[in-house]
C-alpha cells in the first residue's frame, strides 16, 4: 500500500511534466480552441457541401444507373422467361396441331375408305341392277323373238304341211301341228 502511494506520488510530477510536454506540442503547432474548432466547423461545412453537391449527385447518378441495369436485367430475365414460355406454348400448339392434323388425316382416310367402299358397293349394286335389267330386257326380247319365231315357225310348218298335204287345215290342226313341231325343235 505504501509503495502504491509512493508510486503515485512519484508519478504526479511526471504527469505534470507530460502535461507540460503536451502544452508545448500544442503551442508549437498552434493547436488551441479557436483554431481547432474553426477547423472542425470548416471541415464539417466542407464535408456537408461535398456530400450535397459532389458525392450526392454522382451517387444518385450511379444509383440510377444501377437501378436501370437491375431493371434491365430483370426485364431480360422476364423476356427470357416469356420467350421460353412462348417457345413452350408454340411447341405445344404445334404438337397439338400435328396431333389434330394427324387425327383429321386419319379420319379423312377412314371416311375416304368408307366412302370408297360405299361407292364401290353402290357401283356394284348399280352394275348388278343394270345387269339384271339388261338380262331381264334380253330375256324379254328373247322371249318375244322366241314367240315370234314360234309363230313364224308354226306358220311355216302349217303352210308347208298344207302345201304338202294339199288340204286346208283348220285351226285345231294348225295348233296341233305347230305344237308337235315346236316340241320336236325344242327337244
Amino acid at each position: 500500500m505504501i509503495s502504491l502511494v509512493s508510486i503515485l506520488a512519484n508519478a504526479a510530477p511526471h504527469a505534470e511534466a507530460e502535461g507540460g510536454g503536451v502544452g508545448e506540442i500544442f503551442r508549437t503547432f498552434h493547436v488551441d480552441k479557436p483554431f481547432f474548432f474553426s477547423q472542425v466547423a470548416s471541415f464539417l461545412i466542407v464535408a456537408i457541401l461535398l456530400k450535397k453537391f459532389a458525392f450526392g449527385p454522382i451517387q444518385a447518378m450511379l444509383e440510377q444507373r444501377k437501378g436501370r441495369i437491375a431493371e434491365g436485367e430483370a426485364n431480360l430475365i422476364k423476356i427470357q422467361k416469356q420467350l421460353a414460355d412462348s417457345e413452350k406454348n408454340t411447341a405445344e400448339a404445334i404438337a397439338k396441331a400435328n396431333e389434330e392434323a394427324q387425327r383429321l388425316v386419319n379420319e379423312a382416310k377412314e371416311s375416304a375408305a368408307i366412302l370408297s367402299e360405299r361407292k364401290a358397293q353402290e357401283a356394284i349394286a348399280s352394275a348388278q341392277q343394270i345387269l339384271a335389267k339388261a338380262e331381264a330386257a334380253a330375256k324379254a326380247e328373247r322371249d318375244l323373238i322366241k314367240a315370234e319365231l314360234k309363230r313364224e315357225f308354226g306358220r311355216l310348218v302349217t303352210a308347208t304341211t298344207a302345201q304338202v298335204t294339199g288340204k286346208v287345215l283348220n285351226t285345231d290342226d294348225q295348233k296341233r301341228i305347230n305344237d308337235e313341231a315346236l316340241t320336236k325343235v325344242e327337244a
Partner: protein
Amino acid sequence: MRFLASTTAIWLLGLASSFAATEGVAEVHDHLPAHAEQIFNIGPFVITNSMLMVWIVAAFLILIAQLATRKLTLVPSGLQNFVEWLVESLYNFLEGILGKHLVKRTFWFFGTIFVLILFTNWFGLIPGVGTVGWELSGPGVDPHDKFRPFLRGGNADLNMTAAMSFTFALLWFYWAITENGLKGFLSHIFAPKGKFSGIMALMMILVFGFVGVLEIVSILFRPVALSFRLYGNIFAGENILENMMLVVGNNKFLAWLPPLPFYFMELLVGLIQALVFMLLTAVFLKLICDHGDHHDEDHAH
C-alpha cells in the same frame, strides 16, 4: 508521351514554385512554420491559410462534380465517365472493407476524407502555395516570422488533421453505437470472446475487462495518431521541398532543380497518406461493427 508530359509539368511546377519563392517574398522567410497562420477572423472563427486552401480544394471538387453531373448521359463519356469511375471505384473499394450496409451509411464521410485529403495534398504542391503572401510590418512583429503566405498545404496544419480525426472519432462512436446498440458496443469491447464456464469464465471476464480498458485507451489515442501521422508526412514533405530550394544558396536561378525529384515523391506521398487515413478510419469502423457472422451478406440475401 504521357510520362514526358507529366515530367514537363512537374518540371515547370518546380520552376514556377522556385520563382514564386524567390520573387515573392521574403528574404527573411527562411523556414516553414510548423503551424498554419491566421489570415482573418469571422466572428469567433479563425480563418487560416490552410483552411483557405481546404475551401479552394472543396470548391474545385464541387465544381468538377457539378460539371460532371450537369449533362448526364446514359452512356457516360469524358468528365462524367472519369468522375463516375473515381467514385464507383472508391465505393467498391470501401464496400470490400465495410460491407454493403455500412458503406451505404458512411460513404459520404470516407469518400470526402479520401478525396479531400488527396486533392489538398496535391494542391499544396502548386507553385505559390506557401510562397506567395505578404509581409507583416510594425512593432511587435517577430523579425524571423514576418512573412504570411496566403495559402498553405491544408494537411500541413495539425488543427486540420485533428479536426478530421476527432470528427471521425465522434462519428465512430455514433456509428458503432447505432450499429451495435449500447449494450452490444460495450460487450464488443469488454465481453470475453469465446465460451467459458466456472472459474475460467470469471478469469476471462477479468482478463477481457482489462483488455477492454486497453482498447478504450487505444480508441482514445487513435485520433491523435491519425492527426500526427497525416500532419507529419505532409509537413515533412513541404519542409523537404522548401529546404531543397534553399540548398542552391545564392544561385537562385537553380532553385527549381533540387526539389524536382521530391515533387514526384510528394505526389505519391499525397496519395498514400490519403489512402492510409481513409483505410485506417474505415478499418477502425469495421472492427467495431464486425459481428463476425457475415452479417452484411445475410442482409444482402
